[in-house]
C-alpha cells in the first residue's frame, strides 16, 4: 500500500444504549449529523458511502435507503456485509475507491440496533444443520472454542479476567459506553461471574446494545486543500475469509489472523513490537488472546502468560481497546466493528482526553465476522493506522 495518500479526517460516535427504540435510520442519522457538525462538511460534497449491513436489516436495498435517508447522491456506494469486519473492511474498500477515482470524499457509516429490533434469521446452512441442535448462539460457539483451547494449551482464567478488567477500566472513562457497564470490575467479580456457556463466563462476553459510528475519508491531498489539520492514514490492511475452509477438521483455535496479521505487519514494515495501540475486535475475551498469539505478540499457547506479564492500560506498554472495547462499552451489533476503529482514530488525533495514550504513533485495529460450523470464525481483518504529520 502507499501509506500516506489516503486519510481519515473525521469520526463520530453516539452513545451506546440498550433498547434505544430507534431504527437504523435514526441511529445512522444521529452519527452522520455529528460527523457533519464536527467536520463542517457540506453533505453535497460526499460522493462515496460505505454502509455496514446491520443484524436487524439484512436488506438488499439497505444502502439505497440510507442514501435516501441522508440525502446523498454518491458515485460509489457499498453495502459492506462482512459481519464485524464491515466497518474496517468498508474503510479498506473506500481507500481503494478513492485511489481509483470512483469517489473523492467517502463516509463509512455503521449502525445496528439488536436490542430494539429482531435480528434477521442468519440463513445459509444453519436452519437445517445447526439451529435444531440448541447451541447458545455466539456464546455457545465461543464456549466450544475456549474448551478446545484449554484442552490444547496452558490456560489461566485470571488472564482472560485481566483483559476484561483492563477494558472495563477504560470504559469507565468513556462517556459513550453503555452506562450500566461503567462500574469497576474486580478479579473476584470476574472469577465469581456465572458461567454462560462453560467454560465461558459472563464477563468474557459482550453485552448487546444499539449504537452508530461514522468516519470521513478522502485523499490526503484533498484534505489539505480543504483545510483539515488532523489526518489518520490507513497504512496497511489484510483480510482472510473462511480460513482453512477447504478442510473438514481444522484446528478450531487457528484463526485467519495467523495469515492476515503478519501480512498487514509486513505491508507496514512493522513487527508486533512496533504496535503502540491495540484495538482488536472483542466479542469474547478468548478472541483477544488468540489474536495476541497469532498476530505474533506472543507464541501459540503462551497467550495467558503473555497477558499476565503485559500492561494493557492506556498508560501501559500495549494499551488495549482504550474506550472499553465492545465487551465493556457495549456491542451495538455489527456497528460494533467500527467502535474500536473510531477509538483508534481518536487516539491518533490526540483527542482521547483522560484516556489519551502517550506517543500514540500507530494503532492496530482488527475485525471478526461470522461464526461458522465446527471452525474458527469466518472473517479476520487487520488494519494498521498511523497519524499524519
Amino acid at each position, binding site marked *: 500500500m502507499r501509506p500516506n495518500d489516503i486519510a481519515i479526517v473525521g469520526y463520530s460516535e453516539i452513545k451506546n444504549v440498550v433498547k434505544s427504540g430507534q431504527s437504523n435510520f435514526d441511529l445512522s442519522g444521529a452519527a452522520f449529523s455529528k460527523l457533519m457538525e464536527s467536520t463542517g462538511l457540506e453533505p453535497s460534497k460526499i460522493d462515496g458511502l460505505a454502509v455496514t449491513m446491520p443484524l436487524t436489516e439484512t436488506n438488499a436495498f439497505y444502502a439505497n435507503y440510507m442514501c435516501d435517508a441522508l440525502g446523498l447522491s454518491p458515485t460509489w456506494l457499498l453495502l459492506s456485509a462482512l459481519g464485524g469486519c464491515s466497518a474496517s473492511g468498508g474503510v479498506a474498500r473506500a481507500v481503494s475507491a478513492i485511489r481509483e477515482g470512483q469517489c473523492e470524499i467517502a463516509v463509512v457509516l455503521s449502525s445496528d440496533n439488536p436490542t430494539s429490533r429482531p435480528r434477521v434469521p442468519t440463513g445459509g446452512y444453519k436452519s437445517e444443520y445447526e439451529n*435444531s441442535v440448541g447451541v*447458545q448462539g455466539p456464546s455457545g460457539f465461543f464456549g466450544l472454542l475456549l*474448551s478446545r483451547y484449554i484442552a490444547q494449551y496452558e490456560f489461566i482464567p485470571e488472564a482472560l479476567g485481566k483483559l476484561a478488567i483492563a477494558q472495563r477500566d477504560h470504559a469507565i472513562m468513556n462517556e459513550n459506553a453503555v452506562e450500566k457497564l461503567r462500574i469497576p470490575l474486580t478479579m473476584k467479580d470476574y472469577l465469581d461471574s456465572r458461567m454462560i456457556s462453560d467454560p465461558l463466563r459472563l464477563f468474557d462476553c459482550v453485552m448487546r446494545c444499539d449504537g452508530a459510528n461514522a468516519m470521513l475519508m478522502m485523499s490526503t491531498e484533498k484534505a489539505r486543500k480543504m483545510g483539515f489539520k488532523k489526518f489518520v492514514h490507513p497504512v496497511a490492511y489484510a483480510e482472510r475469509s473462511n480460513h482453512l475452509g477447504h478442510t473438514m477438521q481444522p484446528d478450531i483455535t487457528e484463526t485467519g489472523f495467523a495469515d492476515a496479521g503478519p501480512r498487514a505487519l509486513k505491508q507496514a514494515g512493522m513487527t508486533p513490537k512496533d504496535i503502540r495501540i491495540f484495538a482488536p475486535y472483542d466479542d469474547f475475551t478468548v478472541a483477544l488472546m488468540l489474536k495476541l498469539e497469532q498476530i505474533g505478540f506472543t507464541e501459540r499457547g503462551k497467550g495467558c502468560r503473555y497477558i499476565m506479564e503485559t500492561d494493557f492500560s492506556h498508560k501501559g506498554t500495549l494499551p488495549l481497546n482504550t474506550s472499553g472495547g465492545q465487551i465493556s462499552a457495549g456491542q451495538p451489533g455489527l456497528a460494533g466493528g467500527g467502535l474500536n476503529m473510531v477509538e483508534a482514530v481518536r487516539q491518533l488525533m490526540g483527542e482521547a482526553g483522560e484516556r489519551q495514550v502517550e506517543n500514540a504513533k500507530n494503532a492496530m485495529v482488527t475485525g471478526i465476522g461470522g461464526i461458522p460450523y465446527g471452525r474458527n470464525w469466518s472473517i479476520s481483518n487487520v488494519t494498521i493506522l498511523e497519524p499524519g504529520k
Partner: protein
Amino acid sequence: MSTAPTTAKPAPKRPVPVPNTYVKAQPYWDGIKEKKLLLQYCTETKQYQHYPRAVSNYTGKANLEWRESSQKGAIYAMTLTRVPQPGFEERAPYPIVTVDLDEKVRMIGLLLNCKPEEAKIGDRVKVCWEVIGEGQNYPAFELDR
C-alpha cells in the same frame, strides 16, 4: 379498573429443519428417516464432507456421492449450555459437543444420556437419535462405552 386478559404464551418450540433449503440433499434426509447418517464423499480426492454442499470443498466440482457413516467419533470440543435455546428450556443446563467423526468430518450435536461431568474432550461417542417436530429423526451423540 379492568382486568387484563391472561394469555398464556405458547411454549417455545425446538426449531425443525426444512429439508433441502440450503442445498438439495435428499439422500441425507432419507437416510436419517432410517437412522442412517449419510455423508457426501468426494470421488476424486476420496474425502468426506459435512454438512452437505453443492460441490466438493476439495475440488470445487460436483463429483460427490453419498456414503454411510460409521456414526462414531470422538469429542473435539464441549460446552455446557446454560441459557436454553427455544424448545430446550426443560433440559438446561445441557452439554453440546463438536465431534470429529471417524470419516474425518466434524458434527455439532447434543450430548445425551449422561451427566455433563461424565464426558470430556477426547472421549469416544456414537450417534443416537432424537425425534423432533412431527416424527423427524435428528442426530445427537452419546458416550460410546
